[in-house]
């Protein structure tokens, strides 16, 4: 391809990437290293329906002056990254020095918001991803072996969890596991403990979230694998059958190797998605038990006082986290690409 052809071919994509990926990232990085000016506080008398009171307020004219001089705010460098509500380097060091055992250190560590969120997010990501791949694959193989007339119907039903909006899916399950809900009652009956509440126990909440995560993402894996199954070479399968391979052996030695690249693809997408888990936490109202980096961003932005620098910092940390998660795969792709030239 001539260079100019390539350029014009690639230009729209490049422009879109610049506009929708590069600039926003520059914007959040900038916001994460600048913080608002120091507020000029004054005492003032405030009156209202309940009488007057001397209170602290922000001196608008003085603050306005500061803002006009430096519209970006104060330069903070990595201060926000290392503060207690993010990476908390100081607190982690302190905990390391003060703890006598590794267990004590970890219990101190998960008391810090960032590490608590990491504990949940990583558990969620690494449990959900393999299970949803396995479930999606099993459903794809099962549907593929059905009679042609049933296939359409079964595909529709298998896709339902993906069709239902995530928040609604989470809410449905949330009501079912309520201590007065169908599943909540059943579980407390089975456990012979009338006071048992799924929503009050951290391990049970985590399990519910993970089950929801697998349920809602398995259809994605299913669709990809089902498409892949249509391309499995029939002659290889037939020769395997002639050799006397059982159905399991056919799957293990013919189908799975054929679908391996697709599994990598699904794993990549799902690792990224699950690392940014948010909807189930909101839908299950599980903020007391499970947090993620995305839920921190939401909290920062929806409080009465918005913390934009903190939200931007968490966003940058999320990007770094995703990059680290994907790095093994990315390195391999890069090697394959380099190797492909020979």
């Amino acid at each position, binding site marked *: 391809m001539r260079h100019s052809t390539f350029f014009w071919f690639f230009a729209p994509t490049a422009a879109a990437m610049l506009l929708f990926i590069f600039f926003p990232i520059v914007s959040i990085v900038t916001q994460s290293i600048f913080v608002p000016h*120091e507020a000029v506080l004054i005492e003032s008398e405030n009156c209202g329906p309940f009488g007057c*009171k001397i209170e602290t307020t922000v001196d608008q004219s003085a603050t306005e002056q500061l803002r006009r001089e430096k519209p970006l705010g104060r330069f903070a460098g990595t201060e926000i990254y290392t503060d207690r*509500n993010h990476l908390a380097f100081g607190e982690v060091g302190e905990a390391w020095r003060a703890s006598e055992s590794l267990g004590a250190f970890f219990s101190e560590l998960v008391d810090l918001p960032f590490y608590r969120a990491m504990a949940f997010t990583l558990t969620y990501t690494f449990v959900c991803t393999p299970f949803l791949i396995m479930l999606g694959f099993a459903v794809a193989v099962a549907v593929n072996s059905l009679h042609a007339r049933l296939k359409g119907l079964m595909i529709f039903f298998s896709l339902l969890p993906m069709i239902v909006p995530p928040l609604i899916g989470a809410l449905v399950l949330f009501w079912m596991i309520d201590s007065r809900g169908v599943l909540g009652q059943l579980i407390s009956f089975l456990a012979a403990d009338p006071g048992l*509440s799924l929503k009050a126990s951290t391990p049970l909440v985590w399990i519910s979230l993970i089950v929801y995560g697998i349920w809602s993402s398995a259809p994605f894996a299913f669709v990809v694998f089902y498409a892949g199954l249509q391309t499995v070479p029939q002659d290889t399968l037939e020769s395997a059958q002639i050799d006397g391979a059982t159905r399991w052996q056919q799957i293990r030695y013919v189908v799975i190797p054929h679908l391996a690249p697709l599994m990598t693809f699904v794993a990549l997408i799902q690792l990224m998605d699950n690392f940014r888990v948010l909807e189930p936490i909101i839908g299950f109202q599980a*903020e007391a038990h499970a947090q993620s980096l995305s839920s921190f961003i939401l909290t920062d932005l929806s409080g009465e006082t918005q*913390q934009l620098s903190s939200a931007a910092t968490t966003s940058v940390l999320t990007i770094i986290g995703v990059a680290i998660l994907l790095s093994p795969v990315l390195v391999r792709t890069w090697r394959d690409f380099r190797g492909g030239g020979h």
Partner: protein
Amino acid sequence: MFLKKFALAGAVALLSSTSAFACEIGARVSIVGNEFPAIQTVGAGAQECSGAEVSTNLTADHQKINVAGMSGNPAEYTSAIVANSSIVALMNEDVIRPLDDLVAKHGGGLQKNQLITINGKVMAVAFMANAQHLVYRADVLEKIGMEPPKTYEDMLAAAAKIRDMGIMENPVGGAYKAGWNLAQEFNNMYIGHGGEFFKAGTAEVSVNNEAGVATLNMMKALSEYMNPDFLTHDSNATNAEYRAGNVALMNMWGSRAATLVEAEGVSDEVKSGFAIAGPMTVAGGSTPATTLWWDGWTVAKNISDEEAEATFIAMTHAIRPDAIADEAKAKEAVWLIDGYEPTPAAVGVFAAAQAGSTPYPMLPFQGLLHTALGAELADFMAGKESAEQALADVEAAYTAAAKEKGFL
């Protein structure tokens, strides 16, 4: 001739009487605010004005959009309906204007106590008051032979008796959902214990003290009598529990108490037993464990003077005395409007005000503390850490946030 004159006089009288209510504006008005019934009424009242377009965007997510929607020049919203907690964000960002000149020109019908003045300037006009207070089941208390509780200690005793007599398993309702609600319940109880949130005159937090620990222990004791899912219950969920007849005692918002039992499917027993009382005190204190709130409207700074004037006229029209003459509307809130006659549903809020309750603090950094409390107290309530540890976490989370925002 006589008839003609009479008809003319009548027409003139009619015209002049409608013109007293008519509202003519010359520039656009755009309102953003929360969505509960009283605010819907105010929004609809402003839309009665003619001459220019009046649009409203009333949503529970108003706080996420009001600062952004008023920061531009010209601002998208010409008025934001806020409360004493949320006006702070608008003040901090300097997006609302002083209203003194407009009050002098068009605010004749407003009462002095409706004007919210900050540092000598009128920054908002309040139209309703709100507070959390006790609602209870009179029939259940009669059964156990107890008076409505005046203190949280009484509430615990009543709850224990209701449970022991097998009337209800979890008789206490509480909006203890992790986040804003849980933090608000802490604020109430901490104020009831005589606690101060900050070292006087500074933005330095101080909640990790005896009052803080006592507050958390009382909240924990109450939670023993709540539905085990209490950390997911906001005031909608506690209301549902009350309506279903599962709860006999709870601390509820005045703005929601009036319509609490007016939902479909509420049993007659719950309806007839419904009663309202003032807020409770705790630990022998005299200040009720609650906070007083006002809701009011502001006018944006970054708009033309014509738009500001039109906004002021339309909003004043929306809260004129006869806007609440209708009985259904009068019941929607404890209005701070001239001529308002308290309905029976308002006794809780009035009792709160008369008992000398503390208004929710209008401090620039109170919102940051509220967020920190909401995030860090859940671990204690779930039994995962000590009260001291939870309060130390709150202080650390607040301090980091306050440093970022330039308050420390």
